[in-house]
């Protein structure tokens, strides 16, 4: 442990909060030797520089809501905790833009923005997520139908590279095509390319009124027809969701005057005994129950096949993305078969399935990522950002290091 003590000292020299890791802080069981919690970009850069000098493998940690996603790291010498990097940097409401540090919890950001009647149009499926973690995992919820995922809303990003250099891309204006958009590249990169420290988002006004129109559906065909009716209509839904078992729910947002008429139109489109309400239906914006979570890419026409294959613990969004849950205690071979079946049916629709989290036995039995079309290219990009393979090694597709 002599090296470790030396590393601790070196880190302490650049960062105010450094300590040895605790066993319960393991990332999917891989215990970090050290934990550093920088409180500024400078400190974060210092930490990363030291890590580079000492060859430490680094795993970033935000709100710990998705630390169990993906594969366990091959090594974890240093956990970089971003939760002290939680400042709101700038909210220029007139420009509908906000900049925040990576460790800021999404809910807190939402509160601040709401004071000025604005919001970041991203749902937070897991309470406690941070800004940085949301970007790193490309997390989104029902609103993705209209607003997309973090890649559509991040307009500027500051990262600390593996070598400790601070780099920025984008900026604080919505319209900007100067240089490569590293913001989009970092969305969903699971901490393998660099440490996200600051992000700038474009914002939207909080709608004056909202309504949910829901309908119980009986079977894949009805679900499909209800969804198609709304997708191809001009009601301009903010979200179209299927919530298993058997509910199609549509979120409408806008001015109060217009909303009731749009809601009635939508109810008509959904058919059956659609109901209009002011509150989200049960399960709205949550992942399906279970201890295994499978993320599926399933364009609208794949919905019937998805439902026929996946059973009841399914949620799906009109933009062609969904989740499937498997209950605790499911034997690994059940998971393997389900995953295989999903990949078969979804593959025909140019979709796919990826395991986000699973109990260890399942995780070890399945091919979590499935086929990755441009893997060789991804490895080359990773090699550039992380030539020494120290950033969340092994956590990501193809065991990329």
């Amino acid at each position: 442990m002599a090296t470790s003590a030396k590393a601790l000292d070196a880190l302490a020299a650049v960062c105010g909060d450094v300590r040895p890791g605790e066993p319960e802080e393991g990332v999917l069981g891989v215990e970090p030797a050290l934990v550093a919690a920088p409180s500024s970009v400078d400190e974060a850069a210092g930490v990363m520089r030291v890590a580079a000098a000492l060859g430490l493998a680094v795993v970033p940690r935000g709100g710990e809501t998705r630390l169990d996603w993906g594969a366990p790291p091959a090594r974890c010498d240093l956990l970089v905790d971003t939760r002290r990097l939680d400042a709101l940097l700038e909210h220029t409401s007139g420009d509908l833009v906000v900049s925040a540090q990576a460790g800021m919890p999404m809910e807190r950001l939402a509160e601040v923005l709401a004071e000025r009647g604005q919001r970041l149009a991203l749902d937070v499926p897991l309470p406690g997520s941070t800004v940085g973690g949301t970007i790193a995992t490309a997390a989104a919820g029902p609103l993705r139908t209209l607003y997309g995922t973090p890649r559509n809303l991040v307009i500027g990003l500051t990262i600390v590279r593996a070598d400790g250099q601070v780099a920025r891309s984008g900026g604080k204006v919505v319209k900007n095509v100067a240089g490569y958009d590293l913001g989009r590249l970092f969305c969903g990169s699971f901490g393998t390319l660099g440490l996200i420290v600051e992000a700038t988002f474009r914002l939207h006004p909080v709608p004056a009124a909202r309504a949910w129109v829901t309908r119980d559906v009986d079977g894949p065909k009805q679900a499909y027809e209800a969804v198609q009716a709304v997708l191809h209509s001009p009601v301009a839904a903010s979200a179209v969701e299927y919530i298993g078992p058997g509910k199609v729910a549509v979120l409408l947002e806008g001015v109060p005057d217009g909303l009731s008429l749009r809601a009635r139109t939508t109810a008509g489109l959904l058919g059956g005994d659609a109901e209009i309400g002011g509150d989200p239906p049960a399960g709205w914006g949550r992942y399906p129950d279970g201890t295994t979570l499978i993320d599926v890419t399933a364009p609208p026409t794949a919905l019937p096949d998805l439902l026929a294959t996946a059973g009841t613990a399914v949620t799906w969004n009109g933009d062609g993305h969904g989740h499937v849950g498997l209950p605790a205690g499911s034997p690994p071979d059940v998971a393997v078969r389900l995953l295989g079946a999903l990949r078969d049916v979804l593959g025909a629709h140019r979709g796919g399935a990826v395991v986000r989290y699973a109990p260890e036995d399942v995780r070890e039995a399945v091919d979590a990522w499935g086929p990755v079309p441009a893997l060789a290219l991804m490895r080359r990009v990773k090699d550039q950002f992380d030539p020494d393979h120290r950033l969340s090694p092994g956590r990501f597709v193809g065991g990329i290091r």
Partner: protein
Amino acid sequence: MRMLSELEDGEGMDSVLRTLARDLDVLLGGDRVITDPVRLRTYECDGLTNHRATPGIVVLPDSAEQVAGVVRECVRAGVPYVARGSGTGLSGGALPRTDGVLIVTSRMRRILEIDIPNQRAVVEPGVINLDVTRAVRADGYYFAPDPSSQQICSVGGNVAENSGGAHCLKYGFTAHHVLACEVVTPDGEIVELAADGPGYDLLGVFVGAEGTLGITTKITVRLTRVPQTVQTLLAAFESIEAGGRAVSAIIGAGVVPAAIEMMDALSIEAAEAAVNCAYPPGAGAVLIVELDGPEPEVAAQFADVERLCRDAGAFEIRIAADDAERALIWKGRKSAFAAVGRISPAYIVQDGVIPRTALPQVLARIDALSAESGVRVANVFHAGDGNLHPLVLFDDAEPGAAERAEEVSGAILDLCIEHGGSITGEHGVGVDKARYMPRMFTEADLDTMQMVRCGFDPGGLCNPGKVFPTPRLCGEVPGVRKGPHPFEGKADLF
């Protein structure tokens, strides 16, 4: 009438290019390789004519396999190559290399698939932007990115430039409407990059990379439902400041218009001269505001917008009663660039972005710049997102005028940077603005961006010299490493 192989004409070419031309001719066959100098010269520039270079060879492939074959031949010969769509770019992104190959996609223009149930279409890169919309309009859909050049620019070019238009305020840019791209990588492989697949979002960085990361040969685009209704108004103000107040008020009220466009007095004058758009006389600025969406929603917000314009001092407001009147309102705005030619022999179209709230200060500074230098500047802009298009006017017959205009144009970019904006909102960096990149980004920023470049194109043959002022040395080429990585198995330092 088609010309056959014209290799005999390739006199004076250097031997590497001549051999390459022969190889390409064998590979592609037919009339797909151009080496005649007169023909080659017609490809010497894109929409930005002050940068010119006659390409060494032009090829007109008509499939992804052919593109991949050409790229592989270029790599083998160590010759740089540049992709070109319709050649309307305004930053010299498609500026050819005299020592290289220009790969033109204008014959790859098939719409391969229209999939309405999934709200998407698959097109070849040479398909014209507006043709996508034309193909799906009857189904109630359209392709949302609407650069003013949409009648001719290619979807491949849109992908490369991450193009947007007046309506991207609400609907976003090309990046938000492309679901997947088939790409010929700089090593000649054909790969599929998808927005929603496992692994890195390489598509996210490919879109907007200005053709420096590979050539897209097939694009899956998202189709957008045609809104139920569209309402457009034209408001005339005495001054730009008053117009700016209206914009702030509209945004502040929580309205997200489909578009908010502003023109100043000088650009109005030009538009009148060109297309008789009959905007209200005496206007110091006109504002075009368009709302679209579900009828009840638009109706309610439109009333607010009208009121806010009046409160901000609009002295005349016109509301388009039908499509014809809407077209009339837009006519002046859409013709503005070309129209400036009527009031000035030459001009530079600048493209910069500022935070919208900085609009009054920046416009005042531009006015001052113009007054100091005696160079006239007409302003047209996407006011909703702070994207300015100052048109810097000069007389190319007057000695030194071009240089002075260039100076003012550059100073405007400095203003944008100073106010936390960007040196380009839609036209891209290309060759034209590469030298401004260090003013906006640090060395580390640029170096980091180029790490992506090195990952994709370690050999640096794919559209070199664009976007970045100085290339990054990619060092050893990590991608081609065979066998276990040197660090493999040495995980634990402790």
